[in-house]
């Protein structure tokens, strides 16, 4: 029983790392630019496809994943330049545009890649014994990578000059401008980093799950739940919420019913909104 609980916990953490990576991108863009970027899930999907085609072309998983990150970074920058720059300050327009983007990108992907699911060969396969625990090697790898990404990004925000500028901008846009932060440049950087994170998440998703044109929707919905759960705009909140959701789903599916899997996240959200209306860390306007 104890063994089983430990295994389920680690299963939850492994998927939670993925959730957190996606939620991080969403909360970042929202916290800084004030846009709920619905197209974020599409970046996850496109990143997964870049990985799939890279692996198929013989580049191997790692190179393909790096390519996915770069491609999605560029995608984010272009999207910001062409679309979101123009909707700044108008949340409804930003929302409408990003919803529209979902349709456009998803249907283009379905038309180009066909709706058939594709599976990517993961860099490692099978399971390993860690003490008495039998764990999936690839999932452990995904956990390690997502933790490294999240941790690295967190350190970047805390320590790097640009990271500090990003946090400053999230806390006070005008204040940031007054000290010489070029707000438009940081906005684009944020979109670029957020989308690159989504690309990384896409590569990791592809190493575990089927790649389809519609795969972006689940991470997107869950990402939004998490961003809300963490207190919209709060980076530590989104990260903690990601892991929490992974664990809740894992325990729910393992010990309760697997047919209610996606419901556990919403229960968490509703409870959080009722009892912690300002998010997990209660920071209210808590930002990056």
């Amino acid at each position, binding site marked *: 029983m104890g063994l089983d609980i430990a295994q389920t916990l680690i299963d939850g953490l492994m998927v939670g790392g993925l959730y957190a990576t996606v939620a991080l991108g969403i909360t970042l863009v929202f916290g800084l630019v004030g846009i709920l970027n619905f197209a974020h899930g599409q970046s996850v999907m496109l990143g997964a496809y870049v990985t799939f085609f890279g692996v198929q072309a013989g580049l191997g998983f790692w190179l393909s994943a790096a390519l996915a990150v770069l491609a999605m970074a560029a995608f984010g920058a272009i999207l910001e330049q062409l679309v979101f720059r123009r909707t700044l300050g108008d949340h409804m327009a930003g929302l409408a545009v990003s919803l529209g983007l979902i349709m456009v990108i998803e249907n283009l992907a379905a038309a180009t890649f066909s709706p058939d699911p594709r599976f990517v060969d993961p860099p490692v396969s099978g399971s390993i014994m860690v003490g008495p625990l039998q764990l999936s090697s690839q999932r452990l790898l995904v956990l390690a990578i997502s933790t490294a990404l999240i941790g690295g990004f967190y350190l970047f925000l805390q320590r790097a*000059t640009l990271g*500090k*500028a990003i*946090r*400053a901008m999230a*806390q*006070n846009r*005008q*204040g*940031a*401008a*007054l*000290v*010489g*932060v*070029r707000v438009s440049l940081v906005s684009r950087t944020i979109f670029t980093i957020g989308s690159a994170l989504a690309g990384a998440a896409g590569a990791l998703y592809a190493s575990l799950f089927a790649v389809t044109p519609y795969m972006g929707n689940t991470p997107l919905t869950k990402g939004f739940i998490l961003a809300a759960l963490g207190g919209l705009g709060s980076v530590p909140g989104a990260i903690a919420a990601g892991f929490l959701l992974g664990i809740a789903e894992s325990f729910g599916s393992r010990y309760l019913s697997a047919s209610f899997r996606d419901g556990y996240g919403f229960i968490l959200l509703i409870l959080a909104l009722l009892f912690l209306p300002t998010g997990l860390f209660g*920071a209210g306007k*808590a*930002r990056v």
Partner: protein
Amino acid sequence: MLTVENLKVAYGRVEAVRGVSFAVPAGQIAALIGANGAGKSSTLNALTGLVRCRGKIAEGDIRFDGLATDAIVRHGVVQVAQGRQLFPLMSVRENLELGAFLRSAADKRRRLDELMARFPLLAERAEQAAGTLSGGEQQLVAIARALMAEPRILLIDEPCLGLAPIMIRRVAAVLRDLHAAGLTILIAEQNASFATAIAEHLLVMENGRITQAGPPAAVMAHADVRRAYLGI
């Protein structure tokens, strides 16, 4: 010498600043005084590129109207804006460090040491989140943050708003120190007695225009102004 010629700021159809011209010689403290909505903040925001404007803004021969805020900061013109605009969740130290965002790391360290030596309060509260400080302390942090950029021209919007008298005296002292150190300062202020006490030159703004200008004594001698700002 900071010169402003025929400055205009409009928000949609509303003209907030309607052709203002003035000059602040290097090393002088000047004060824009006027009622709420007279166009003081808009003038300062135009000077630092936060709002779009028309007209000519220059320091000496170098024009900087139309430039982005970061370029103006780089040029040595820094504003302490209304409401202080601190980063509330960051520590005092991080706030100050960000003040030197455009400077080298070495400059940043040197400047931080200087300011902490000059204002012991900053050193005392260095690790405290800026949002938890009192209003006066926050004003001090905001001024110090602006000084981190080593400006040649400092613009301060309503330095006394919401402060207790003891804090007002402290802020005044700091401004006098800066003036003594040779900094050019332009204050926007509703509190006319504070402005007259500290400034060498007063500019009275009404409805987006400068209606009176001159040394404090001369301006305050004017009956309209006395009535309007000193209530006598």
